[in-house]
């Protein structure tokens, strides 16, 4: 990652930590509303790869605040949500790993049990898939100069893939946590409840599956491959 993106992420972490207590005002005051505005128009001049990183951090620290609305236009909200979901899923995975390595039962950490290891591997695959979808979508959006009408295929694919990961990620995260993960005081629900909500926000599975499925039906069987390869690499 570039040095300027590293700095941006550090700023985002600090600002979002403050926002977690005070609401969205510090996010607006710190200028995140101009993250995607070009420098010659007085903005930060960031791209969607920057926004992807910032939104993933928002998905971890302030999933309940409207950070995506501050940063991106209405038409880009489904794309922004993929990044938020990737961040929240990464946090659910991190909490789960920490918990199973610490919590002991039958005289050893939960993470030593193969059943738990296999569950977490399944979860990790889903999380990596959504992170990859968010990152690939970001690259594509930047190539398209953030014109969502050109990136309809990738937005649909990425949001649908993220939606489909929600059930696996939230259920395994809660299962390996046991009762503590179901409490108000423990942090897991701070990412799992938003994930449950986001699956149905800016297009649930059926919504995007219909859009993408009808689009691909128009490409034809061979056409799908030709379109996919023409749209990247």
């Amino acid at each position, binding site marked *: 990652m570039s040095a300027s993106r590293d700095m941006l992420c550090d700023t985002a972490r600090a600002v979002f930590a403050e926002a977690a207590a005070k609401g969205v005002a510090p996010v607006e005051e710190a200028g995140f509303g101009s993250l995607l505005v070009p420098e010659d128009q007085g903005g930060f001049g960031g791209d969607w790869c920057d926004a992807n990183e910032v939104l993933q951090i928002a998905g971890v620290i302030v999933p309940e605040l409207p950070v995506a609305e501050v940063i991106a236009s209405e038409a880009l909200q489904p794309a922004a949500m993929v990044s938020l979901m990737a961040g929240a899923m990464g946090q659910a995975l991190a909490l789960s790993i920490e918990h199973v390595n610490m919590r002991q039962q039958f005289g050893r950490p939960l993470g030593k049990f193969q059943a738990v290891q296999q569950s977490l591997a399944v979860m990790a695959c889903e999380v990596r898939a959504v992170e990859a979808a968010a*990152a690939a979508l970001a690259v594509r959006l930047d190539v398209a100069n953030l014109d969502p009408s050109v990136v309809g295929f990738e937005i649909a694919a990425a949001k649908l893939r993220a939606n489909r990961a929600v059930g696996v990620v939230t259920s395994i995260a809660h299962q390996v946590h046991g009762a503590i993960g179901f409490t108000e005081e423990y942090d897991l629900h701070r990412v799992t409840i938003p994930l449950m909500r986001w699956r149905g926000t800016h297009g649930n599975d059926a919504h995007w599956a219909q859009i993408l499925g009808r689009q691909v039906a128009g490409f034809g069987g061979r056409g799908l491959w030709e379109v996919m390869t023409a749209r990247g690499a």
Partner: protein
Amino acid sequence: MQGFALYPFDPPGDIAALRADLRGWLTVNQPQDDVVARANCWASFDAGFSRALGAAGYVGMTLPARYGGGDRHLLERYVVIEELLAAGAPVGAHWIADRQTGPLILRYGSEAQRERYLPGIAKGELYACIGLSEPGAGSDLAAVRTTARETAEGWRINGQKIWTTGAHFSHIMLALVRTEEESERNAGLSQVLIDLDTPGITIRPIIDMAGHHDFNEVFFDDVLVPHGALVGERGQGWKQVTAELGLERSGPERYLSSHALLAALIDAAGPDPDPAVASLIGELTAEMWTLRQLSMSTAAKLAAGEDPMVEASVVKELGNAFEQDMPRRVQAIVDCAWEGSDDLARLLRALLIASPSFSLRGGTREIIRGIIARGLGLR
């Protein structure tokens, strides 16, 4: 495991032209055989096609020119193999030699081995199989018992390999054998290159549940190979094999084996599909698109000289699940007679029957998940 970083897939040269040239070549040279042969096509043997592909420069692409290779970038080869798989070309004959045996000989082999084997591999004429599994060593590969003992004349090999894909048409086997007496587990293992026409080798077919002859059992009865058959460092076989498996797990074959079925589903659905079918096409497309991103990123990481062991396992796990679920989901939605004669019905039946093997070959699902779990910092 660190958070996922997307490695930019950025091959040198004009990739659009590379694709277009290959697509044009395929329209002329791809056998117009049965649509079922296009599914799981990296198990389809066609020596004539492999030779033609080699002559056109699409085999051994990354090997140096002095060994007959194409001196091309790893990611140029990636583009070529994803095109071949998406087209359902019969690449099974040279597949293993091109994907892993050639690169492994280049990396660990002696100069004599490179000169002896690599030109044939690059021509698409010399085929290889991998001697890993044994009756007592499946997922527990470190239980390998086949021995190679050093004698004055060379290495004497005794033992048995099993589930060896393509041994019946291959010229060479790269085998993992125990070279050190009294050694245990993953110590004391070495890789040897065995010419399969050497006396003392017996190859017997094992017919799979689809009625196909892909894998074999191979017996070694006092087989004598020269001293120079050892590949790489004596006793380092485990390390070399582990590196080889990374090449085996992350390629586009992990999500494109069943592509013919998705294409047939889309064609059968027509431009105005029933909502349930449209939904399924949408879901499968989203999964495939994501897998392609993961696979390309992993290939790019490999090309950058890093070891994407965990990422490769993620690609295999998700790719296997995608490919095994696809025929089941199609069957659940589309009314298709089991004995139907249309393309969709025949592909569906073939893939339903073939797909249990997907999460067995190249490392079982359980082993792959174990590797991922270790990458997460568990156990």
